[in-house]
């Protein structure tokens, strides 16, 4: 029997020819990444618990300040400062503060198809956009990986998600993944590796694949992936100037074993919304259309790339954000921000009355930039709507695509984005 792509990548990093679900492996990792959300604890693990005097390979360790940038309090400033000192002490050159969201930077600057990243952040499955494996872990595991360059994994069962047909107008990758989580439930794919396949996926850009893999996290997955193809090769060439040939092993074998197959017919899909306070509380946008909102957010690692911003600009151009709504836009990285300026998108956003934040996790982190007060309602392109996720425990968060969020911002209430077509 053959292997799935995730099994092959794990096998190649463990020195095994063949691996099976349930097997325990020690794997060498290609990159280890951490961010300011947990750096206080990560540093404590490395310095005080492990008492490490040097790290595995400082050139493979990336530290990204993104959750609370620019620092919003004295305590945050201290965390950033201790992270910078940690980077200097151990010789880590890749320290970023204000460059963008960690997962976006790993795709823009580091990961290659077939590689493995271990990171102190749950949205690590985003690396699947390039055909790489991203594994989210806690501080003890990440600290140990920084020191050893290795970690242990249990080979997960693989799940195949087949996207059939083509998306109707005003329906996007975000709607697909919301619909999938509505089906699987929030804990439905705990510890599984998800692979997305289908004609639609092969037409998707790296950004759209990023959205799918990123938010698959919310179904409980260990990792998510799209097999790398010409789209990925072109992306790496164009955006990073890196020439990487596709290797023949980089796809699941035709006789690979998938524990289950989930089929989604895209041609019948409608714009989706995840309602408070659970990511699997998903419905058709028309069911809650008309619900009054206080705030709209375009941002987070799910949907704040240039293609997302172009969609938002298309909607906002010549329109005004509703006077009862505060609209925040936070590009996912400095590179994307600059491109948006050059394309004139930022001008459109400002003229429409939106507020622009410097790249980072922003409102999705709920501790800086656009925090919600009690009773307030947010519609957002982010990936989580847990109780209190964006501020007060008595606020509400609805998750949707950039187009749905942008239309709702203009109207002042949740709006079906197909109305504008």
């Amino acid at each position, binding site marked *: 029997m053959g292997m799935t792509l995730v099994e092959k990548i794990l096998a190649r990093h463990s020195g095994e020819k063949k691996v099976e679900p349930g097997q325990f492996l020690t794997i060498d990792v290609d990159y280890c990444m951490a961010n300011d*959300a*947990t750096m*206080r*604890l990560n540093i404590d*693990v490395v310095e005080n*618990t*492990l008492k490490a005097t040097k790290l595995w390979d400082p050139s493979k360790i990336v530290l990204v300040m993104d*959750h*609370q940038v620019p620092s919003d*309090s004295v*305590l*945050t400033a*201290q*965390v950033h400062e201790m992270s910078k000192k940690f980077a200097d002490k151990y010789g880590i050159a890749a320290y970023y503060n204000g460059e963008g969201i960690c997962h976006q930077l790993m795709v823009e600057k580091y990961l290659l198809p077939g590689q493995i990243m271990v990171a*102190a*952040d*749950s949205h690590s499955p985003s690396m699947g956009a390039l055909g790489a494996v991203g594994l*989210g*872990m*806690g*501080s*003890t*595991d990440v600290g*140990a990986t920084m020191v050893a360059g290795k970690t242990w994994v249990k080979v997960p069962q693989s799940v195949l998600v087949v996207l059939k047909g083509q998306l109707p107008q005003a329906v996007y990758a975000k709607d697909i993944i919301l619909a999938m989580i509505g089906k699987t*439930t*929030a*804990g439905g794919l*705990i*510890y599984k590796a998800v692979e997305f396949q289908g004609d639609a996926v092969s037409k998707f850009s790296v950004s759209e694949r990023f959205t799918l893999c990123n938010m698959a996290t919310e179904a*409980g997955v*260990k990792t998510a992936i799209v097999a790398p193809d010409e789209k990925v090769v072109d992306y790496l060439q164009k955006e990073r100037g890196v020439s990487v040939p596709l290797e023949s092993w980089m796809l699941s074998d035709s006789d690979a074993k998938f524990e289950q197959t989930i089929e989604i017919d895209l041609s019948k899909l409608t714009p989706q919304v995840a309602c408070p306070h*659970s990511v*699997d509380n998903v419905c058709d946008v028309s069911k809650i259309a008309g619900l009054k909102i206080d705030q709209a957010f375009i941002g987070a690692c799910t949907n704040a790339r240039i293609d997302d911003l172009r969609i938002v600009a298309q909607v906002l151009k010549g329109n005004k954000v509703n006077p009862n709504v505060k609209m925040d836009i936070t590009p996912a990285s400095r590179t994307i921000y600059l491109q948006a300026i050059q394309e004139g998108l930022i001008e459109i956003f400002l003229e429409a009355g939106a507020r622009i934040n410097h790249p980072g996790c922003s409102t999705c*982190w*709920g*501790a800086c930039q656009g925090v919600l007060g009690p009773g307030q309602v947010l519609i957002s392109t982010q990936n*989580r709507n*847990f*109780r*209190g*996720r964006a501020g007060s*425990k008595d606020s509400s968060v609805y998750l949707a695509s950039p187009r749905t969020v942008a239309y709702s911002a203009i109207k002042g209430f949740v709006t079906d984005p197909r109305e504008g077509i």
Partner: protein
Amino acid sequence: MSGQRCWIFGDNIDTDQIMPSQYLVLPMDEMLKHTLETQSESFAKQMEAGDFIVGGENFGCGSSREQAPLALKKLGVRAIIAKSFARIFFRNAINIGLLLIEIPSVEEFSEGDLLEVNVKEGLLKDATTSKNYNFFPPTGLVKDIFESGGLIQYLDNKK
């Protein structure tokens, strides 16, 4: 009646509920005061070391923050009992030596029931209802890590 009380929570208790984002920059002692505050105003104030937490499906989902299981361990939570656990939380809990017990029939527990656990025998007792529950005790590497008090202590002991 012997045993210590349990605190009941629902399905999909994510790590943002266990430790909200805005408190992660605080030193641990300060952070502990906010444990599970979005779900229960009394938990952090009234729970006592040795108490149990009962969750539903997918306990510990969401963010990878190890501060979530760490706060529960520092407060002295004896064990978390749930139908299922999210994967990063599961791994973090093992690494820090916090006991997780998977039991399908968690609906049978009521807020305040007095519980007792015997890890070696894989036996959980509800002294209030006089019901017994069996679970798979940790074995192999996980047992060794747990008995050492966590992954780092386990590796230290092996030196």
